[in-house]
């Protein structure tokens, strides 16, 4: 994102590593539950799956403190502006996981009411298929995102 970062010097590189390490270890999701997937997202935070292991049990109600928006569920046309608003309120760097079929493509509800894919509204980093994806599938999505962050450049 920043021109000054390239070409990365050694210090910057290791700083980037540290930053990315911190970001992957402490990724606070915004509580953006919409529908069925939200229940599975909640289930992922509970004892059997325990998102806390990744430092992610800190679901922030305020988007200002969230790093990750898990779009869990179907996004209706009425909700779309709100979703974008919440995304805009999140501070950089921020990531979006599109959880489940409805969020990713509208799923089986290929109709007038739903946004056919949340990537029309916000940039999505990871898509998690499933309807709803089980907690483990969601965790796999999170791990995918962590890999993406770790392999990426440091961004501000």
């Amino acid at each position, binding site marked *: 994102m920043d021109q000054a970062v390239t070409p990365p010097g050694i210090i910057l590189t290791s700083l980037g590593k540290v930053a990315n390490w911190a970001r992957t270890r402490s990724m606070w999701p915004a509580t953006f539950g919409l529908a069925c997937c939200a229940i599975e997202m909640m289930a992922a935070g509970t004892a059997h799956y325990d998102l806390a292991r990744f430092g992610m049990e800190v679901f922030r109600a305020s988007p200002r403190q969230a790093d990750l928006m898990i779009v869990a569920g179907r996004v209706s*046309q*009425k909700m779309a502006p709100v979703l974008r608003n919440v995304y805009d309120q999140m501070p950089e760097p921020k990531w979006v996981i599109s959880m489940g079929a409805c969020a990713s*493509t*509208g799923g089986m509800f*290929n*109709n*007038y*009411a739903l946004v*056919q894919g949340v990537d029309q509204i916000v940039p999505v980093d990871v898509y998690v298929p499933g309807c709803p994806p089980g907690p483990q599938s969601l965790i796999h999505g999170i791990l995918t995102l962590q890999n993406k962050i770790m392999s990426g450049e440091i961004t501000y």
Partner: protein
Amino acid sequence: MTEVPINGAEAAEEAVEAPPRPLPDHPTLAGLLEQFDAVEWRLSSGQDTAVVPKSQLRDFALAARTAGFEMLVDLTAVDYLRVRKIRFEVVVGLLSLQHNIRLRLRVPVPAGEPGDDPTVPSLVPVYPGANFFERETFDMFGIIFEDHPDLTRILLPDDWVGHPLRKDFAIGAVPVQFKSSPQVT
């Protein structure tokens, strides 16, 4: 399975013309229906159904509430576009706790002239619980409920155009994305 003829525009007239007025066995229901000559009773899939003209809807509802139907459980509509003469039908489900019976009201609502919305009297003054249901029906079918305290869109955005559950409203599907299909986006 033909007591509710749907396919066939003559259905409405046929229903009105039936000369010996059938009445249900249940005394409460029978008593209620006897008060209204224009209301026709049917048994549809085993459930008591009253076809109520929309002019008498509110009176009938008030009488029904007095007769013991405490609760309005459901209110919706059906769009019989190109199936019946009278395009819309508002369907109201009433439940009586004391008699443990249900009664379904069917109110034919003509579509009205082009540019004019179909109207039906609101049941909110009789059953406050009709509020949301009527708003939903308005939202989905564009049926105006007269004297409703707050008849606005409830499920769809306020600036939405159209009424999705009408039969002439397309479902609005987009092509599904595939790699090998010609519809690749």
